């Protein structure tokens, strides 16, 4: 196994799928000549040329729609949003076209497209550039939503997403691009969509997380372990479809759960996970399920305030102790 970054893992996935299937192309702002605003597409223009690695004007609604149109006739576009914040301008094409074409056409028109780019906050990018959109997309039938937290997941899931016959919203972690991890080297390293993974085994409390909160949960689990509390860390990896089995199996074992997410609390992904657990495992629960979320405010620029607004291991530890009635 090679140790590579999350960025390199995504780059490999793109390269391999571009090599494998002529129908795959990458389109977005600065993806070609600039190698990507976050350098995820480094070297791809050189290898695949300007017809397959396509720089666009700043026109999210337009090029998202162009991607959907190309997918309607059988190409497999990968549309990069420089960040998911800008995708708000394109959301009509994602929701009203991509997610509904198959249904509205009575099954005739598929839409095998991947929309990808970094989501969530980075450092001090302030209110308009620091937003987590997974709960919005996961609300929509017809979409799949994938959020890898490690390099291996990034690679295996992106390859699956590109091969998937349905529109996939693939949200990367901007703060994860430099994260390193082991990634299997075989060509056909694929991780199926819709499968969560237990990233750490434990018995006392389940911590459910995805994307950037995976590392936070693991860190919290380590801190808890120092106090002899064994937390099980469940990484959702795919938000929609949600792997209800893995979640419920873990809660059946621990009888307690904490749900982490980077985004805002109201009707976040965590609310859905809570709904699932309490409706399906009500009698197994020894405590209410607690959520740890980003603060319910637009993201401030100031560094100290930003730190307060974000999820961290200390907050996760505190929540775990609360569901264990230790605090």
């Amino acid at each position: 196994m090679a140790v590579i970054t999350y960025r390199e893992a995504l780059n490999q996935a793109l390269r391999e799928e571009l090599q494998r299937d002529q129908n795959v192309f990458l389109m977005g702002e600065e993806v070609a000549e600039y190698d990507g605003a976050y350098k995820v597409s480094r070297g791809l223009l050189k290898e695949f040329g300007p017809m397959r690695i396509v720089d666009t004007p700043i026109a999210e609604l337009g090029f998202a729609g162009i991607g959907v149109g190309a997918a309607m006739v059988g190409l497999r576009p990968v549309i990069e949003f420089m960040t998911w914040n800008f995708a708000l301008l394109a959301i009509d094409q994602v929701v009203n076209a991509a997610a509904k074409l198959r249904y509205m056409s009575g099954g005739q028109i598929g839409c095998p497209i991947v929309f990808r780019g970094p989501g969530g906050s980075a450092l001090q990018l302030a209110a308009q550039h620091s937003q987590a959109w997974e709960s919005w997309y996961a609300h929509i039938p017809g979409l799949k939503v994938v959020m890898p937290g490690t390099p291996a997941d990034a690679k295996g899931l992106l390859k699956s997403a590109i091969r998937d016959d349905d529109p996939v919203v693939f949200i990367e972690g901007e703060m994860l691009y430099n994260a390193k991890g082991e990634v299997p080297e075989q060509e056909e390293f694929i991780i199926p969509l819709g499968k969560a993974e237990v990233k750490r085994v434990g018995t006392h409390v389940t911590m459910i997380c995805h994307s950037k909160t995976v590392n936070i949960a693991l860190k919290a689990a380590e801190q808890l372990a120092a106090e002899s509390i064994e937390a099980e860390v469940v990484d959702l990896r795919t938000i929609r479809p949600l792997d209800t089995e893995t979640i419920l199996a873990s809660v059946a074992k621990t009888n307690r759960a904490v749900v982490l997410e980077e985004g805002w609390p109201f009707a976040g992904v965590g609310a859905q996970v809570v709904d699932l657990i309490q409706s399906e495992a009500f009698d197994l629960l020894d405590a209410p399920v607690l959520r740890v979320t980003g603060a319910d405010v637009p993201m401030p620029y100031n560094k100290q305030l930003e730190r307060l607004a974000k999820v961290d291991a200390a907050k996760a530890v505190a929540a775990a102790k609360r569901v264990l009635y230790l605090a």
Partner: protein
Amino acid sequence: MATSAVSRPKGASAPGAEDLKKYLRQMVLIRRFEEKAGEAYSLGKIGGFCHLYIGQEAVAVGTIAALRSDDYLISAYREHGQALARGMTPRSVMAELFGKVTGCSRGKGGSMHLFDLKLGFMGGHGIVGGQIPLAAGMAFACKYRGTDQVVTCYFGEAAVNIGSFHEALNMASLWRLPAIFIIENNGYGMGTAVARASASLDLSHRAYSYEMANEVVDGQDVLTVRNAMEVAVARARIEKKPTLLEIRTYRYVGHSMSDAAHGTYRTKEEVEEFRKRDPIVLLRDRLMQEGQLDQAGYDALEKDVIAEVEDAIQFADSSPDPEPSELFTDVYAPGA
């Protein structure tokens, strides 16, 4: 960019009498179909929004006459006419309006979402302007694959003021995509006359912002439409350049079934005035004057069309609803 004069591209054959009769029949079919659809709506057989094409028949028929069977088309919600002109059967369209499983979209799309992949008819779309980037995307795919297919995109004149028009046309020109963008200028977007929504009335001139070829076309004369379209199609197919056509037409009826034909935002007189240049009458009279058609021939044609539409109504009415289980199919690919 100069507006190109309408001249027949080399190799394109002038339509003969048989072609013209075919266009006439198609236009009459659309007219009668829409009238019947309006009736069926009043009877509660059709629900939701239903936007009729009456008055605009020459646009669909004239443009589609210039296309090849492997080209793609895409439209807005006022697309019954284009669907029929493209060769979708009255049965499959009417059954879709009735919401039946025999409809072109299995009853799940309805009036605004007619699809027929085999004919390259890529829908019926309900968000104003939404289909314009989709059209550019299909044209991108044609270019990507190196085929010489072209894509035709229909939208109302009110759609020229929305962002997706602007973004898609810029990219279509920048990347030389083989697309024909058709503004069906019927004078109104719901109750809003063009001048109350567009800062400039020369809608075709918007193409200059993108250095795109463009033309204003009389949409009531099916031959003029066909000629202009042939030039645009050749430009797309051979020169790999898009065109913006503003085809001027008129809708005789209300915006949708809940809107009166006149009274609120236009007068009865205005509608009457436009009816004088009815596309069907224009072509019929021309064929009669040229001795290609007589009254008996026309009557036969109409009778034939009426029977076909009647058959479609019967078919739609007697077709079954989709099974309840279909509620959950087609959300994702089979097996997903």
